[in-house]
């Protein structure tokens, strides 16, 4: 059996799955239930001076029939008195001494930071997470992302915390910034032990087109909120990678953002995270999802022969390069596996209208045909094809050659003038513009889509 346990900057946890600071960690009741279910740790709902929330707090993004592919909230930090939270932290730690309980904190003055760190320490918290991320409400009061966006202030607050903290300190970063590594480096300079990212992304999740107001609607009005859930994973992954690769950050990373199953967690870990946090998925499906996450992670580790999480933390990082270092001699070409094709022709219309006119239709069959010499290997058709492995992108270069943009630049072999001979698209076939006029309309609006223009025949009688 692989060992799922972690030691994250000194915080020990039976597995890398933590609940992120959010409603699921609002109370001792919830955290105990979560630990019972199998979660390894919990970052308590952010403590500070208790807030008052509005009613109508969340909004969702649905894609067709899929609910909550994106989620947003306009909630603030904990609205419960600090003493209640601390008492419950203590109780949880008593019953679950080997699980990680991390106190998420957000206050203003140096004194407040000192007080709240000391008190949570006394309550038995295994570490702290400084919430410099909340992108709504709290930032209007000079906290949350207002801090996360100012590396100098962030560093100063971390220094205040380090003056009294005897347990590891994690700084939670906001993604609402152009370069995530700047606050990450500030955290390091301030002496933090680790970073966690991402907090939510400032967002308007949708607009009610009848009430003319953004979601969630509070008495006819709305405000920008924080975006999270499956839709934000790609943004989180990129930011985790940026922090993990930066030579001056060098801090353990707790990956957050769009994690719903073991696969999402593995992706975060491969890009450098050594613990992962989950909020939206637990809010959507409850704590029970942890069973699929741990079993999936375990199976993956068995299949790959990994004994500990650390065998693959950051394992994909060497393969994430700047664009200029990619091999330009590598070439793939689309290949339709006829026997699998169901004839939806989505690949055809995608390539015809959205790519390189490299797919043709032939009379008498619904199976499209790749025009190999026109195919640039963009992958689009294989991405739109609804049948698994029906269009494969097959390597067509012989694999012996390697040439990067950087090497070409160094060799003076890149286009520099507007009409340069070396332009990539120069020797690639492009249809004449006028070919599109009228007579090619069937390529966009086929057959009966135009029936009302009287272009079709009377259906033959039976």
């Amino acid at each position, binding site marked *: 059996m692989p060992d799922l346990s972690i030691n994250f900057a000194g915080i020990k946890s039976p597995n890398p799955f933590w609940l992120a600071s959010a409603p699921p960690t609002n109370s001792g009741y919830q955290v105990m239930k979560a630990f019972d279910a199998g979660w390894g740790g919990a970052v308590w709902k952010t403590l500070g001076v208790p807030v008052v929330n509005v009613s109508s707090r969340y909004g969702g993004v649905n894609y*067709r*029939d*899929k609910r909550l592919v994106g989620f947003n909230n306009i909630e603030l930090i904990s609205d419960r008195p600090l003493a209640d939270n601390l008492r419950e932290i203590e109780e949880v730690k008593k019953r679950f001494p080997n699980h990680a309980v991390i106190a998420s904190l957000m206050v203003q003055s140096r004194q407040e930071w000192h007080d709240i760190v000391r008190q949570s320490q006394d309550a038995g918290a295994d570490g702290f997470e400084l919430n410099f991320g909340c992108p709504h409400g709290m930032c209007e009061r000079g906290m949350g992302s207002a801090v996360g966006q100012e590396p100098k202030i962030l560093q100063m607050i971390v220094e205040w915390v380090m003056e009294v903290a005897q347990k590891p300190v994690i700084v939670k970063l906001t993604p609402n910034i152009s370069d995530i590594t700047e606050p990450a480096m500030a955290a390091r300079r301030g002496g933090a032990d680790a970073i966690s990212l991402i907090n939510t992304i400032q967002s308007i999740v949708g607009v009610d087109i009848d009430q003319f107001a953004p979601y969630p609607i509070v008495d006819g009005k709305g405000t920008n909120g924080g975006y999270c859930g499956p839709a934000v994973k790609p943004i989180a992954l990129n930011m985790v990678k940026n922090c993990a690769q930066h030579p001056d950050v060098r801090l353990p990373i707790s990956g957050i953002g769009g994690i719903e199953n073991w696969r999402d967690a593995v992706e975060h870990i491969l890009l450098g995270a050594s613990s992962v946090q989950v909020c939206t998925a637990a809010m959507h499906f409850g704590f029970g999802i942890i069973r699929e996450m741990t079993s999936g992670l375990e199976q993956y580790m068995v299949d790959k022969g990994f004994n500990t999480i650390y065998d693959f933390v950051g394992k994909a990082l060497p393969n994430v390069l700047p664009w200029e270092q990619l091999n330009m001699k590598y070439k793939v070409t689309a290949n339709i596996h006829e026997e699998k094709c*169901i*004839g*939806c*022709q*989505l690949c*055809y*219309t995608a390539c015809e209208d959205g790519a390189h006119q490299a797919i043709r*239709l032939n009379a008498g069959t*619904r199976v499209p045909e790749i025009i190999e010499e026109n195919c640039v290997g963009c992958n689009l058709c294989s991405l739109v094809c*609804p*049948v698994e492995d029906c269009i494969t992108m097959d390597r067509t270069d012989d694999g012996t050659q390697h040439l990067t943009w950087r090497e070409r630049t160094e060799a003076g072999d890149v286009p520099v003038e507007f009409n340069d001979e070396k332009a990539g698209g120069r020797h690639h076939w492009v249809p004449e513009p006028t070919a599109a006029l009228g007579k090619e309309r069937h390529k966009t609006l*086929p*057959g*009966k*889509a135009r*029936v*009302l223009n*009287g272009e*079709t*025949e*009377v*259906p*033959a*009688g*039976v």
Partner: protein
Amino acid sequence: MAEFSTPTSEQEFQLNFAQLKPHMNRTEALYESSRCLFCFDAPCIKACPSGIDIPQFIRQINSGNETGAARTIYEANYFGNACGKVCPTEVLCEGACVYNLQDVKPIEIGRLQSYATTKVIESGKKLFGPRADNGKSVAVIGAGPAGISAACELRALGYAVDVFEAKSQPSGLTVYGVAPYKITNEEALAEMAYLQAQFGYNTHFNSPINSRGKLAELENKYDAIFLGIGLGRTNELGLPGEDKINCTGAVEFIAELRQHHHEVAVGRKVIVLGGGNTAMDAASESARLGAEQVVLAYRRGKDEMGAYEFEYDLAKGVGVKGLFNVAPVEIVGNGYVAGVRFVRTETTDGKVQEIAGSEFVEPCDMVIKATGQAKQTEFLSLISGLKLDGKGRIVADAHTGQTSNPKYFASGDAWNGGAEVVNAAAEAKLTARGIHAYLSK
């Protein structure tokens, strides 16, 4: 058998004849429309005789534009709601859906279609209207799918339209012939009311055009006449005993059933003669009316039946038994039907031959003849110069629907010899344009 007990009230009738394609709610429509791949040059559109832009209306449902979806449907087919419910989608759009090739359930196009159209019918939303009066008028004979579709299209082109219908209600066989588990009378008539409110054609019910005099009147008064008269009564078999009590034609039996529901009595053991879709319907309906045994007797083998496979499956599903390779020779009984004398047959080189000495009597107390509908040749002979083909179908131009008497145009069963509602609706729409082209010359 006796899966169904005889319905004694409207409520029990509705249970026995529960809709095969019940209404979708918004959630179901959202989920189903989400499955659609929105194919390019979608095969489902090509398989629809009326060419409804199916991926377009499914996309509109998916994005919450049900009104737009209904418009897309009605622009192509005025019987959009009826077709969604009664079309043999298994062999049309849904049969062509690309999902079939993956052995995945095809998109429920019919139900999505009715979902959208039902919404606008219920709301009464105005989607269409007549064009400004062009001063010309057309008489439409028959208020079936063909006649009403022609009336709508002609109004949209600016003609004054009078529809003459022999029966007391519009929609033709949609309300007098199609099986009650496919569409209810209320649904069929609601669509008719909706269309009439949108387009404003005049209807004259209980007004058969059945004499040379009435035809002459129409010829004088109108610029063109549209024939949407469908087919006639069930063909006579010419067998001894055919006039016995409880020996009835399928079309007549079904028309009764559609109007009187549980008040229609069925025998305890029913023999249905025929192998087409109407035979399947009549057999299923007898079973659902509580007949203890229903036997489907057909002259040839099972695989040679004209009925769609799914229609036969539907009949089998309610306990109907097939009796193949038998030909009826006599309806026996003393006043009342007591059985059918059959002779066994075999098919050699496509020809059915009776096997001498193989006669037997299959007892029953009701016989339903589903042996095809007669053409209305007698009525059609009143129209001068009107040509019929060898099978009694009206001969008309394939593009314009114009008959050999230039003033008369035709569509639907009377022209195609008997097809589906969707064919009648699609043909009539184009024929209306044929009339327009003719009167615009």
